């Protein structure tokens, strides 16, 4: 005896495919079993068959006219190389513009003036300037003392070589050590010659120091270095004197590099935008004309 049941979605799909003969042998056997055991399945299959027959009864409508293409239509239908070319041009320029904008937006963020970064960059080009940078940071008030009407890029400075700490304070150090050190700190023996290179040699450094002193006309008497109020530390007025000289500074030069590139970038971007928009517009107009001509 056949049972009454509601068909599942899968069974319905199976019946539908069975009706069209689009089932595998296994599925066919499955449907045959279903039809034999469930009256609902047999009725559903009959209903499906009726629906399909009704749909097949729909008459074929005659075409109102022939849709053959004339020579003129065929010519118009041919892919317009100009339209295609303009589309490509528009796309390429838009892509280039996007890339340039992204480059413009993100690169300055990455290359933002980081003091340490700039120092390292400067060190590659001019070791002297690299050594001078920390001292310049220590005495910003000296920089601000520069006359405002002077040319900005030419704001160099000389400085007294950093006092050498030889452990004189607090009783440290041997009598042969040079006085004027900071207690407890031993700094490397660095001396700098303007326009020259750093040398690790003490004897040469001594000579360079003398040359520097002569060149820069530093008025600080060497004796005063030995007579500081606190165990030989030189008084503040005798340390870090900065003398102007025509050496370009590193910081303003590095910062201005990005700014100098900006106007040319803007010009390229504006040009790309114009090309992209104009070519897209012309392509659209030509395409519409073609459609209208049909």
């Amino acid at each position: 005896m056949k049972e009454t049941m509601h068909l599942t979605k899968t069974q319905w799909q199976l019946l539908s495919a069975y009706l069209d003969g689009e089932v595998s042998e296994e599925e066919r056997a499955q449907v045959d079993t279903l039809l034999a055991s469930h009256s609902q399945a047999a009725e559903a299959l009959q209903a499906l068959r009726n629906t399909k027959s009704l749909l097949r009864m729909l008459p074929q409508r005659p075409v109102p006219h022939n849709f053959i293409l004339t020579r003129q239509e065929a010519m118009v239908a041919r892919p317009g190389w100009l339209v295609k070319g303009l589309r490509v041009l528009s796309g390429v320029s838009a892509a280039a513009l996007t890339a340039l904008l992204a480059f413009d937006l993100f690169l300055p963020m990455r290359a933002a003036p980081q003091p340490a970064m700039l120092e390292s960059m400067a060190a590659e080009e001019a070791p002297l300037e690299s050594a001078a940078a920390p001292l310049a940071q220590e005495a910003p008030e000296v920089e601000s003392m520069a006359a405002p009407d002077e040319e900005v890029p030419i704001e160099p400075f000389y400085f007294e070589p950093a006092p050498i700490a030889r452990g004189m304070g607090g009783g440290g150090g041997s009598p042969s050590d040079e006085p004027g050190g900071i207690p407890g700190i031993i700094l490397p023996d660095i001396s700098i010659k303007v326009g020259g290179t750093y040398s690790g040699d003490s004897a040469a450094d001594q000579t360079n120091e003398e040359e520097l002193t002569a060149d820069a006309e530093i008025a600080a008497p060497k004796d005063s270095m030995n007579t500081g109020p606190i165990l030989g530390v030189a008084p503040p007025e005798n340390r870090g004197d900065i003398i102007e000289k025509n050496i370009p500074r590193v910081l303003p030069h590095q910062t201005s590099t990005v700014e100098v590139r900006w106007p040319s970038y803007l010009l390229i971007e504006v040009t790309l935008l114009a090309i992209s928009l104009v070519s897209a517009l012309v392509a659209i107009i030509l395409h519409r004309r073609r459609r209208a001509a049909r």
Partner: protein
Amino acid sequence: MDESVLIQQAQKGDLDAFNQLVMLYQTQVYNLSCRMMSDTMLADDVTQETFINAYQHLKSFRGGSFRAWLLRIASNNCYDELRRTKRKPAQDLNPVDPDSGEEVEDPVWLTDDGELPEDFVHSRELEDAIQRCIDQLQAQFKAILIMVDVQGMDYKEASQAADTPVGTIRSRLARARDRVQRCLQGFTELLPAKYRLKDGNAR
């Protein structure tokens, strides 16, 4: 002439060969468009557009069923047109009777094709009812139902035409048939006696 020869010649730019292919398939393309769009004017436009597109992209045809390839272009054009008309609903251009204020029937309905008036009206009403049920389907379901049940394609060809796997054709067709069947229950009086469904006959 053999279809494949015509296709090869058309691909080389022979317009006459292409037009022979147009003559072969224009009725099927037009009817698919008519059933999809439910509007003869739009179907006319879509059919013309389909053959122009086919001519433009003929070189991209890589063999297989040319009918399926053409109907794929036609159904894609129908989807585009349906989307467009959905955005901008067209105004009904059927004339309105100035006395009664009622819409005058489509002149196509008034053409005489030799049937008795009652039979003609009945068959037109039935066709209209079936078309309404088809119109309720989503475009993808509609296309598959028309291709398989109206135009008699098998699943494989329908799968090529719809650019969809056979399994999807199978499930979409089953769902479409289910919905049309339920919809037709509302038009029982129009259905021939042998096609009338008993209550609860549908799934």
